[in-house]
């Protein structure tokens, strides 16, 4: 959801520090853990059931429990403008994940939105940059490669990938062992309000997810909105003393 400009820098990352060497080399082969029972099921499971070495050569992103269906995140989207500092509280819930097809979807709930009476919920779909289904170059939504580079470089974890991405959008990179998952999230529709709610979903988010601590950082891009609105989310355990995982399976 579009808002205003953000001036805050990304906070220091607390978690496991991986260097470029860790993930630019080809990953060791993953276990063959694709489900093979018939009839073929579409599995939406927090278990990494899509990772397979059956089709070696392609570079699926690592399966990550914290980026699986049912997982919830909360944080803020900074929509500050020159006139005033402003941030909305934001909750996100992952509802679908298909790593093979580089697909993710979920809902985003913006609370304390000034012009809205209720929290505003949107449904979004994500493209996972896996260099098989999607590269770092967006190629749509009014984003040029320059816009892409300008946004991706906002993520420190992207720095080691920059030179190759400039060449081919990262097509030749192997991200299968990368501890970060880069994505684009595009809001598709408002779930609980009409399009006349005063907010726009014309743009999209450049997103970086950390597999090691489940944090999500993002930047909203819409040529007609304030640039670099920053989204910062953390994995939530919803009052539990640990992590819990639900699952569903589509037939």
């Amino acid at each position, binding site marked *: 959801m579009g808002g205003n400009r953000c001036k805050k820098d990304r906070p220091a990352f607390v978690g496991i520090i991986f260097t470029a060497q860790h993930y630019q080399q080809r990953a060791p082969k993953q276990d063959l*853990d694709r489900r093979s029972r018939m009839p073929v099921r579409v599995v939406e499971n927090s278990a990494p059931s899509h990772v397979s070495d059956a089709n070696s050569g392609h570079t699926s992103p690592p*399966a990550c*429990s914290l980026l699986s269906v049912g997982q919830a995140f909360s944080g803020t989207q900074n929509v500050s403008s020159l006139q005033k500092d402003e941030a909305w509280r934001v909750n996100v819930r992952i509802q*679908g994940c298909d790593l093979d097809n580089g697909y993710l979807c979920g809902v985003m709930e913006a609370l304390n939105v000034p012009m809205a009476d209720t929290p505003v919920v949107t449904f979004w779909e994500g493209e996972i940059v896996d260099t098989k289904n999607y590269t770092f170059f967006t190629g749509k939504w009014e984003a040029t490669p320059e816009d892409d580079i300008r946004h991706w470089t906002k993520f420190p974890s992207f720095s080691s990938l920059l030179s190759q991405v400039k060449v081919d959008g990262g097509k030749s990179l192997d991200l299968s062992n990368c501890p970060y998952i880069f994505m684009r999230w595009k809001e598709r529709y408002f779930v609980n309000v009409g399009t006349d709610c005063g907010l726009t979903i014309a743009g999209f988010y450049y997103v970086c997810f950390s*597999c090691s601590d489940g944090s999500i950082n993002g930047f909203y891009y819409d040529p007609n909105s304030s640039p670099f609105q920053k989204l910062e989310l953390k994995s939530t355990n919803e009052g539990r*003393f*640990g992590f819990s995982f*639900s699952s569903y399976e589509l037939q």
Partner: protein
Amino acid sequence: MPTTSTSTSTSVTSSSGSSRELMSRLASGDPEIKFKALREIKNQIIGNRTKKLYFLKLGAVPTVSGILYRAQVELPDDNIYSKNDSNRDIIIQSAAVLGSFACGFDAGVRAVIDASAFPQLVRLLGYRDDKVVDAGARSLKMIYQSNLAPKYDFLQEKNMEFLLSLLHSESENVTGLGASIITHSCQSIAEQKALCDAGVLEKLVGLLEGSLSQRDASLESLAMLFKDNPDVVLKFAGLENGRPLSSITELTKDRHPRTRLLACICLISIRNTSPCYLQDVGIKTRLVNLLLELLDTPDQVGDDASFAFSSLIAQKEDLQKLAFEANAVDKLFNLLQGEQLHSKRLQGLLLALGNLCSKLESCRSRFLSLQVLELVIDSLTNDNADIRSAACICLRNVSRSIKNLCAGYFMNEKIIIPLVQLLDDSSVSVQVAALGAVSNIMVDLATRKSTFIQCGGIKQLVQLSKSMESTVRSNALWALRNMMFLADDKCKEGIFLELSASEIASLICDPEPLVQEQALALVRNLVDGCVNSVEFVFAEDGVILDAVGRQVQSASKAEIGIQGMYLLSNIASGNEFHKEAVIEKLLPQVDKEADCFIINFLRSNDSRLRTAAVWAIVNLTFPSSPGAFGRLIKLRNAGIVSQIKSMVNDSCQDVKVGSFVTSSVVIIHFSPCWWRCMIILFEAASCENGAHTVNGLW
């Protein structure tokens, strides 16, 4: 096909007597009257199901069978050159009548078999009179087109010899019969191999050069020989430098629609068996377009084309994409709108649409935009069970889209009410198909499933979870498990009360692994969400938790272990009491490593199982819980900590992260200086052999 009368006599017309009168004339002692009556019956029943049924009720089949039997007794083959021509004509006419009854009419086939006419017809093949042989072969061919025909045992040497003699015949009908027998009876790999070894493949290839009926019969038989047998396909593809394969490809351009269809079916059989063949996008596109064209054919070819189309695209995204680009969704929609579609056509079209929407979101979007859903909903209440089942399958595949589910396209009364009714269907296959659709629709996260609950859906699903059929049980639990995903407390409580703790426990211990898996997944979702949900597994003296512990310990397959470990992990994300209950289940005998199943899970080759096990350990040692240190000691004593330590460099990123989290927790607990250790951990992680540094902390 039995043809209309070829007799020179044209004086016999349908007005020459009523059906009953015709029946009485069959009993006449005058061979001429009997012959004419037979011919008249034959002419009346050809292509007329109503007449066939009527004559069946009058007992025509046993009567004609009796006539054939007596004529055979009076005219054994040795007397073929006798002057008894009227008996010969009666034999030919009787066989033709029996064949006509069997043609495309299962009740007729059943009557012919019940009247013991089948062996009499087979006996005719031994006659030296070509016309008698032809009549017998033609009728038997009709019978072999039905599933009710007796199965032919190719593995008996004598039978194989007989079949080869049929295929070597110069009579078109006899070779056609041979091919029909193969089409009907060849089912197993052993039979396919036996037929190939006997040289049948080459013989059928030869028939591809024959008459129209021989070509068609050969194509049908070849498709059966190829089915799921890559060895036969390989042998066929190597014949004559691939010329037969090219011939079949050419036959897809034949002017006869049935030949085109059979050639397509043959090629589909080859491709489905050995995907390395026919990969060329040109032939794939041609097959898609051809079958879509053939759907317009009004007769059986059009009916069969929809099933062939399903077989072509099922589970193949590339072909579904080609079909989508060829506007297949629109085409099928237009055909579905036709008036008075008969059952088989409607079933085939629904299945084709279902297959088309099984993988691609673009097909599903087009489907929804065309309002096809309305037509599918109508078919849910069709009188024909096959159509109800096909409509459910279609609905299941269209709803296999989280995007469409989140948009709430399916959770409405127009769909839910008939679907809930189908859960009580008299046909098990309809029940299972309906459960498939319900399972998907239950993932709807927007409407909180209230429509389904109000329709009594939960009661129905719980009832089905107690079915004698394990497929029904597992699918009912699947639907309940999806319904439980992120469900609110009210919905969870409703399902739990309806099922009861003891029933859930018994389903977890069901003899069928698929049922066990779904039951565990259901409870996994039940205890997620609000921390109070964990209490569900402690109801009735913890009968559920006890069952989980037993089942996970003896998991017969990885999926059961995975669901069980995530379930235990979710419980372990609760309070101290919950965590202690889990560790008791995980470490029943801490001093006997062999019995500690979690060690085996952590060492499993299946990264999903390792990940699930690691998350359970993470939750048990969660830093802010007061009893974590004590549990950590227990885990260390059981050898689990050292196992986790060795997994910090696991090939699976997810396991690695979990292990790392646990490792850091271990450091936190065992180090007097928390921060110092965290710094060491970060430093260790940032260098290439960081794990060694971390490992050194133990």
